[in-house]
């Protein structure tokens, strides 16, 4: 028999470690990462790849140190990352504030869905660069058009996921609340939002990824800082080490934000830790 307090304290520690790291599958993921890395080393060391296009890990590491300390085109790596992540988060949070209530409304009401659907369905398939040209014409080349593009990229995924989430709520959950005499407001906060929560979180994660994919496009014009801009600018001078370093750093910030969102999700929705055996 295991002591009860022990189980409890184990649970308390464990719940702050992301579940994916607890699993053995995490080890397999690390294996893939290592193989990729070793391949990179081998391919560059043996001269199989042209160093101009694929520099070795050491060179990339050096450029990381260099840009971190001396900067790239006047700004350190930290400033570049900070600027971009700020833009992404500002646009993404705004998209959540607008998109999630909109999605709940559209999921719960057919009329709202019919009215609002054309808005998002139309621009959703448009290529970001095409959209950006228009946004620049309307909003100028400053910060506004960048944020607008990132915002528009984040919005549809969020709305669609939230609609799905609300529509998939088991009707018995609504009956329970109505049977107990719950008001509309009580039902919104005690049934709709928590029931849809996990799916909305999944939508937020996908949506954040989508926001990242348009970052470079958003920072092409009239930026002097931003990791997307740094990658774009370095590519013009064939500085492939900076490009690769920038992509890796960008990717890592994306993973960090994703883990952070899941962490917040586990705090806001503690029951998801116990779904299924």
């Amino acid at each position, binding site marked *: 028999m295991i002591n009860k307090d022990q189980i409890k304290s184990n649970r308390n520690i464990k719940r702050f470690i992301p579940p994916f790291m607890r699993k053995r599958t995490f080890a397999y993921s690390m294996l893939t990462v290592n193989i990729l890395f070793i391949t990179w080393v081998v391919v560059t060391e043996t001269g199989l790849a042209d160093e101009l296009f694929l520099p070795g890990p050491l060179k990339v590491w050096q450029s990381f140190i260099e840009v971190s300390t001396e900067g790239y085109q006047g700004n350190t790596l930290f400033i570049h990352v900070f600027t971009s992540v700020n833009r992404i988060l500002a646009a993404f949070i705004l998209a959540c504030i607008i998109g999630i209530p909109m999605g709940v409304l559209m999921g719960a009401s057919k009329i709202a869905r019919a009215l609002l659907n054309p808005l998002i369905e139309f621009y959703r398939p448009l290529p970001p660069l095409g959209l950006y040209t228009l946004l620049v014409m309307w909003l100028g080349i400053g910060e506004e058009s960048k944020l607008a593009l990132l915002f528009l990229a984040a919005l549809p995924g969020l709305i669609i996921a939230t609609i799905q989430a609300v529509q998939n709520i*088991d009707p*018995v*959950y609504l*009956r*329970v*609340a*109505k*049977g*107990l*005499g*719950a*008001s509309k407001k*009580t039902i919104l906060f*005690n*049934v709709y939002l*928590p*029931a849809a*929560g996990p799916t909305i979180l999944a939508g937020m994660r996908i949506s954040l990824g989508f926001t990242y994919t348009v970052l470079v496009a958003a920072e092409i014009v009239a930026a002097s800082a931003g990791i997307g801009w740094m990658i774009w600018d370095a590519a013009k001078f064939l500085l492939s080490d900076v490009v690769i370093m920038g992509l890796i750093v960008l990717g890592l910030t994306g993973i960090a934000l994703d883990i952070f969102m899941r962490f917040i999700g586990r705090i806001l*929705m*503690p*029951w998801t830790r*116990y*779904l*299924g055996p």
Partner: protein
Amino acid sequence: MTINMQKTLKQTKTKGKVVIDNISISYFNRNKNVYALRDISTTINPGEFVCLLGPSGCGKSSLLNGIAGFVDPSKGQFYLDDKKIMGPRPEMGMVFQQYSLYPWKTVKENIAFGPSINNRGDESPEKIAMNFLEMIGLSKYANHYPNELSGGMQQRVGIARALANYPDVLLMDEPFGALDSQTRIIMQENLLKLWREFKITVVFVTHDIDEAVFLADRILLMSTLPGKIKKDLKVDLPRPRDKETTDSSRFIELRQICHSLIREESLKAFDKQNQL
């Protein structure tokens, strides 16, 4: 149980009369109007334990959902204590056929949900929830989530959630359908205990004959397509009932009666469902 609760119970003793007045319920399905129930009338008295017994698809859930106010009848009217039932009412508690606890609330929060909405007495919803948890023997699981509980435990919490709202009528839709027979018998005995304490009206849906005979004051045997009340059977077994009840000759006799009536119906239902 606290003194407070006893008071509430005594007040509700005379309430909980359900009148089913000439009810038909139909569904519009595949461009056809299909009657699930046709011209059903009966009166369920305060404090009575009534079982709706019938084969699958005969409209038991439809009738229960009608009483609960979740489904509107296409004809006729339901009354609760002589007032028309126009929609869900907190005076009626429902225990659903499927698991329906909120996975995002702990066991305690699930039970406290009703009291927190209605806030009748001077006791806090948490206190009420803890009292009910003690009653169903799950105090230890107060802060667990439903997914951490077994099916039988979840269904007990479902019953407690409905009772915590102090309803006059408890509607139960095959609450023990998914349980193994041993657990089921224990649950039935516990339910009778709760019913005795609370003295509320219970309408209990089942397709299990033994269950119906063991629990009910009265069994409404239903026929199929469209659903009707084929037989209104009084169960005159003495109370309190326990394991010995099921061995008595009267129990076996009543079971036999139900068996033959049901068999007829099931065969008919099977045939009808098989026709194109």
